[in-house]
């Protein structure tokens, strides 16, 4: 069943100051990483195209709060936040975006396919909905191998109209697989508004059609995401099966590279800017008092260092040898 987002103001009480600062730090890292990518893209240092997740930082941050290195995460065409939150190092992602040999996929993947098997993140899948069957597959393996690891599958609301999504979500429910389906509902699929693609009001409404529990979450309230993801991950680890989380959020940037965003209103953008997940969380922390402005500034400074280091790493890294284009197709 799916209800409206919990409106009760999220409480910080359940978390240590360090945990709270870490949540801030990760959201800030994702935000600054994306903004930096955009600048570098504009400078022509990153080829082709980019799908940025600014405004959506709270979702992967809150979900990954509960994940281990051995848990699988499948990202989408908009995967930088999924990867950073899962623990892929900023320098390895940025090097991948630059197409450098030191990238997390040796430059073969690129922005839409960042991942790092060192932290159990396969290449992000840029076929909308295409990652869902794969995620059901890793979850099936986790179940058959009697592990208590879980799989997280991110998808945008637009993916819920793909056939592969339907087939795999049904199988996950049917077999009680340890997978959490995390919908980042940012109201648009490229230029297409939610209502242009759905007659129902919520993606979570569809979970019922598979007999799968679901929750609708304020995706811009990181502690709400932490709480909901905590319930879902616990269910999965306990062998109680999958959960669908619909996180309501908003993409502050364009869909990809220089998207003029003329398909939505400035008013709507302004409204959502009000609900910026980082600003909201910062205000909450300062009101709460256990975390000080000093802690936040320190975390922000650390993020700047990490970003600067990532740029230095990416720019100083070697390009792949053209001959490598022919390797890594088959494993012998």
């Amino acid at each position, binding site marked *: 069943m799916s209800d409206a987002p919990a409106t009760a103001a999220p409480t910080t009480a359940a978390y240590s100051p360090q945990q709270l600062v870490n949540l801030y730090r990760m959201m800030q890292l994702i935000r600054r990483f994306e903004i930096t990518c955009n600048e570098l893209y504009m400078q022509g240092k990153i*080829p*082709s*195209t980019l799908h940025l997740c600014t405004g959506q930082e709270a979702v992967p941050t809150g979900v990954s709060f509960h994940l281990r290195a051995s848990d699988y995460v499948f990202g989408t065409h908009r995967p930088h936040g999924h990867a950073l939150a899962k623990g892929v190092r900023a320098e390895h992602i940025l090097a*991948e975006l630059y*197409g*450098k040999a030191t*990238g997390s*996929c040796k*430059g*073969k*993947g*690129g*922005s*839409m*396919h960042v991942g790092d098997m060192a932290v159990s993140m396969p290449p992000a*899948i*840029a*076929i*909308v*909905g*295409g990652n869902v069957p794969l995620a059901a597959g890793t979850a099936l393996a986790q179940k058959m191998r009697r592990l208590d690891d879980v799989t997280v599958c991110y998808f945008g609301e*637009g*993916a819920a*109209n*793909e*056939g*592969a999504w339907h087939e795999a979500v049904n199988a996950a429910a049917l077999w009680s697989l340890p997978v959490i389906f995390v919908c980042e509902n940012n109201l648009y*699929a*490229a*230029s*297409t*508004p939610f209502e*242009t*693609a*759905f007659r129902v009001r919520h993606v979570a409404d569809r979970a019922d059609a598979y007999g799968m529990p679901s929750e609708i979450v304020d995706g811009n309230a990181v502690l709400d995401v932490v709480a909901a993801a905590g319930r879902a991950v616990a269910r999965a680890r306990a062998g109680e099966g999958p959960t669908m989380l619909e996180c309501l959020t908003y993409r502050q940037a364009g869909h990809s*590279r*220089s*998207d*003029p965003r*003329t*398909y*939505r209103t400035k008013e709507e953008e302004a409204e959502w800017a009000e609900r910026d997940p980082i600003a909201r969380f910062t205000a909450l922390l300062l009101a709460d008092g256990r975390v000080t402005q000093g802690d936040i500034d320190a975390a922000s400074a650390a993020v700047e260092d990490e970003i600067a280091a990532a740029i230095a790493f990416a720019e100083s890294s070697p*390009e*792949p*040898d*053209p*001959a*490598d*284009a*022919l390797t890594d*197709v088959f494993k012998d």
Partner: protein
Amino acid sequence: MAQMTIAQALREAIREEMLRDERVFCIGEDIGVKGGFGGAFTVTLGLSDEFGHERILDTPISEAMIAGVAAGAALAGMRPIADVQYGDFLFNMMDQLANQAAKLRYMSGGTLAVPMVMRAPVGATARGSQHAQSLEAFFTHVPGLKVVCPSTAYDAKGLLKSAVRDDNPVIFFEHKLLYGSKGARQEKGAVSAVSEVPDEEYLVPIGQGAVRREGRDVTIVANLLMVYKAMNAAETLAQEGIEVEVIDPRTLVPLDKPLILDSVRKTGRMVIVEEDNLTNGWGAEVAALVADEAFEWLDGPIKRVAAPDVPPPFAPPLERAYVPTEAQIIAAVKSTL
């Protein structure tokens, strides 16, 4: 006469056909949204203002539905022009194209027709493995589908109009680097395919290739972006006294076999250039055709220049090693002499 990019020429073709025939409509993702992109490469930009959102129909992200709805609407009297944002996503609609649209007429004993066009952008543009493939050969192998691949604005307009009027399913491939898309959708490394487009209406018939350059020594068959690379290679080779004939098949099914065979019978040497992966690319079929029907005229091995058998890589240095180059074409031509 107007100078047009392929994106403009395709838009004009769609406009004219929609004005001419009310059964024609467009269906796809992000093709008509107000304030949107006009599809992934601006081809339908502005058309929803002119024709409304029923005839420029925005869909959910559901490729099998798009192809199946187009096929169903076609057999029920409409003439859909369907749009997929990247050719790679044709795999998501493969059943609807290869098992349904392509077979319906035959299974019905010829009592229905499926006049639909499926437009699909192909080509590697540093987007990585899932937004870069050239997929012609997956469809030349499906009986019941026609396969078109224009390389100039003139051909793009004339062939799309012919495809819309064709009573059969047509897979219409467009190369991302040839669109000449402007603004937000401009592509790095794009090649100008701008050409003169007559003001008066014209059609380019499906099934007729074009000789882009005459030559007596070696025949090159190349499509889409590779036509331009072949022409450059031919230019270079001419300076060395090697006269290459460059043929742009323009449509792969039906293939203009006489044009190709006659050229090979003249030159006795053949090179095929495609961005598609080598093994079982459409070039293999052209090679097999020539090795059978023009064998006696062949004076040297048939060479193919194609992408290697790997997925399209992302990093530019790797992608440059993936996409066939003029140097490779020149070397291949020489190896046939």
